[in-house]
């Protein structure tokens, strides 16, 4: 894993705890909401990241997940529906020293903010995006979302949704995101490790988090998050490792033509060498994209983990570079000279 240049950790920072990142506001999500876990894991991991508390900025749009900044004792901005990526871009471009986080949901990021989402991904500012995907509109009380499965019956689709859902991982990859991962609200350890990796990644980091809405879409992801079914229905991506899954590690994913296929590792027909080996650092997006489509093939496990992690120049760095180049070429801006530029004449 490529790390950002480590900076010295101030003594005060080393002593930060989860409590330091907890604001004095009462958390007002429904009891049992998956958001609690994501909040807790974030608050637990931030003290380990080695940067002063005042340098964190959490920016959100609208929706249940977007209340998140109010509960963080950091700088925070609860903005408007779908627009958090734009405001985050303004913050990061203005002050590249800040650690900027976007908290969003499936409706916020992929419906009303879809345009900003794809453009944030392609610009590659060093911003971390946590998308809480619960496949439903919670705050507006239960309408289908752009990740809801076709046929879903909700208040706004009594006969079933006729929309095709987005695949957030595919969308992020297609938009050129340099860090793309998936994690689970009910797997705290994995979630923390992915958040840490996203932070370490220089460039836009995107994490889709399967999050349970126990009021309007309870159990949407239980197949992938609950003990009884998780092992058989998820495959955890590890760089350099073959795609092995199953309770007993007895299944794998291999490539049959252009199709992923589940094979048995216990019946003697296949071994690890036949399986797809994960490579999150490869520049080519094909493998990551291929893995992202697995969720759309019935019978295949959902990949969890880091799909892609490659380093590209960051927008804000290139901006700074242009400013430095311009200063080298033309000197520091001189306002008097600028106002007097071009053809002038003097009236006595």
């Amino acid at each position, binding site marked *: 894993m490529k790390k950002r240049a480590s900076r010295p950790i101030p003594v005060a920072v080393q002593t930060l705890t989860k409590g330091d990142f907890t*604001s004095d*506001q009462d958390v007002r999500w429904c009891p049992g909401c998956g958001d609690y876990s994501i909040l807790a894991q974030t608050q637990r991991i931030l003290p380990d990241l080695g940067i*002063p*508390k*005042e*340098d*964190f*900025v959490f*920016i959100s749009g609208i929706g249940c997940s977007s209340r998140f*900044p*109010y509960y*963080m*004792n*950091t*700088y*925070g*901005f*609860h*903005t*408007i529906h779908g*627009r958090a*990526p*734009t*405001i*985050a*871009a*303004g*913050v*990061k*471009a*203005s*002050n590249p*020293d*800040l650690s900027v986080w976007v908290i969003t949901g499936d409706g916020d990021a992929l419906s009303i903010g879809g*345009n*900003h989402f794809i*453009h944030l991904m392609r610009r590659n500012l060093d911003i971390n995006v946590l998308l809480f995907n619960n496949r439903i509109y919670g705050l507006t009380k239960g309408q289908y979302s752009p990740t809801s499965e076709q046929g879903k019956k909700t208040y706004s689709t009594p006969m079933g949704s006729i929309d095709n859902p987005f695949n957030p991982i595919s969308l992020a990859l297609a938009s050129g995101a340099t860090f793309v991962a998936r994690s689970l609200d009910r797997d705290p350890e994995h979630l923390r490790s992915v958040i840490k990796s996203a932070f370490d990644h220089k460039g836009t980091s995107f994490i889709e988090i399967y999050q349970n809405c126990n009021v309007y879409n309870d159990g949407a992801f239980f197949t992938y998050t609950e003990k009884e079914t998780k092992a058989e229905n998820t495959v955890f991506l590890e760089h350099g490792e073959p795609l092995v899954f199953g309770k007993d590690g007895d299944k794998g994913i291999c490539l049959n033509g252009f199709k992923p296929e589940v094979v048995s590792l216990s019946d003697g027909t296949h071994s690890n060498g036949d399986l797809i080996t994960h490579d999150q650092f490869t520049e080519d997006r094909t493998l990551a994209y291929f893995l992202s489509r697995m969720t759309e093939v019935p019978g295949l496990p959902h990949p969890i983990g880091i799909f892609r992690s490659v380093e590209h120049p960051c927008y804000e760095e290139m*901006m700074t570079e*242009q*400013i430095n*180049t*311009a*200063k080298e*070429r033309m*000197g*520091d*801006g001189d*306002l*008097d000279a*600028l*106002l*007097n*530029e*071009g*053809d*002038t*004449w*003097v*009236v*006595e």
Partner: protein
Amino acid sequence: MKKQKQSIEEATILFASDSGGGAQSIGTQMTEASAIAGNDVATLPDYPAEIRAPAGSLAGISGFQLRFSSLTIHTPGDLCDVLVAMNPAALKVNIDKLKPNGILIVDTDNFAPRNLRLAGYSSNPLEDGSLTQFQVFPIELTRLTREALKDTGLTQREVDRCKNFYALGMVCWMYNRPMDYAFQWLKEKFATKPQYIEANTLALKAGNIYCEVTEQFATSYEIKPAKFAPGKYRNIEGNMATALGLVAASQKSGLQLVYGSYPITPASTILHELARYRNFGVKTMQMEDEIAAVGVAIGAAFSGALGATGSSGPGIALKAEAINLAMIAELPMVVCNIQRAGPSTGMPTKTEQADLLQMFYGRNGESPLPVIAASRPSDCFETVYEACRIAIKYMTPVIFMSDLYIAFGAEPWLIPHVSDLPAIDVDFPTDTNGFEPYLRDETTLARPWAIPGTPGLEHRIGGLEKADISGNVSYDPDNHEKMVHLRAEKVARIADDLPPTEIFGESSGELLVLSWGGTFGAVRTAVEHKQAESKSVSHVHLRYLNPLPKEVGDIMQGFKRVLIPELNLGQLRLLIRAEYLVDAAGLNKIQGQPFHVFEIESKIDEMLRGDV
């Protein structure tokens, strides 16, 4: 033959060609040459939205009107002394703008049957006697240019593209303008294509010599320099002045300028200008849409930069929700609305001032924002600078209004000294003791600008209603009402901070003409003319629209009647009537064109006679 030189006070020339035919560039050259010669100048570029409409068609005609004078002027002139029409369509579209006995120069080589048909002429106007009231100069411009450039080795197509400079050479002769500036400009413009420098230079000289040697042109004109206040001048367009004003505010405040924008006519050239100033640390961000453009400005403001965004009416409509967020978050930001003719897409390359109520009221809830408007191209500098000052001092988004007419118009600008610009003080608090995100300054009611990166001042803001002082989310009924009043009061208090309103003319009398925005020039000129006729009429031009200067109500009381000319259906009039219960009359024009001076004069006459 002996040529005569005649001294005249002023002249107005209109260059018209197919768009892409060079009317804009020779118009600009003539403007620069006239400004440097010491004349007062005013320009009116007028072109279609289509980049290249079919050649020779009426829809594709691009015009550039230039007035230069030995007197102080405020408008590009109602009618023209000279029309240079490069084809029949250019003639047809513009002939109504030529004064009786005005000079008409046409390229006769372009008056073939096909071009006449395209322009909708059933007979050739050069032959059918329809132009007898003008002094017509039929010139074989195409043939003469080809002749002059025959040794350049350029293709005929390339040669024909130099025709506009042949015409410029002629006009330079007619008005005794030196051509050095144009030579220099060509050298810079075609630095990588020296063959074009040579060709256009040849065309320019040939056009000039043509007038010198042919008997067609017997008289040239001299226009003495205008009287200007002493100082150093340059010629400036409104959008350029706006860009410079933003940079100046950034430099004086010590804040980096972050300008988010999405291309839109007529605001794009502000983005182009600012993009050139990376060495001033200016960060321009061309975003995916209008909302993203204002989003980055808000993010910049939140993190302690001078955030600004610019657009025109349709784009501002898209930004409205985000502007409202900045309003309730009480972040300083400047929103530039360079108005164009609406509604909807409207007429993107035509001027209008019909967005005033949009800027006042085009957001949900009670959303008071300061609104200020520039009056002329050079005034954009000071006005946008003032917008930045107010935004930072009062912690609020400020609406800066301009319009296409002044954005693209040019005039001489007395370059200010940087040291004379008002100070813009920025205070980023660092003291954690007693810090509250919505604890206000007693005088201005501004909240503290505590920026990320400041230890101990971590806080959350957002679009949900804020509890007074703490800034926490609040649904408390009394708190909501209090906050609505506080935000309104904060904007209202800006009125304590405004310079006195200047009355042009007597402070009482028969008629007060009250105006705002880009109509300044036409209104001021009309009032000057009427005052010269000893009519009892005065003029107040408003830069500050919200809040209005405190004395506006009293000023109006000094006059029997009030006239508000606007390029809309009476938007300022609506506000003035509502605020002061004054029965102001309107003069309203919605044609995508600025006022003519005579239109305002005749309205003034009517009102003074008591006809209306």
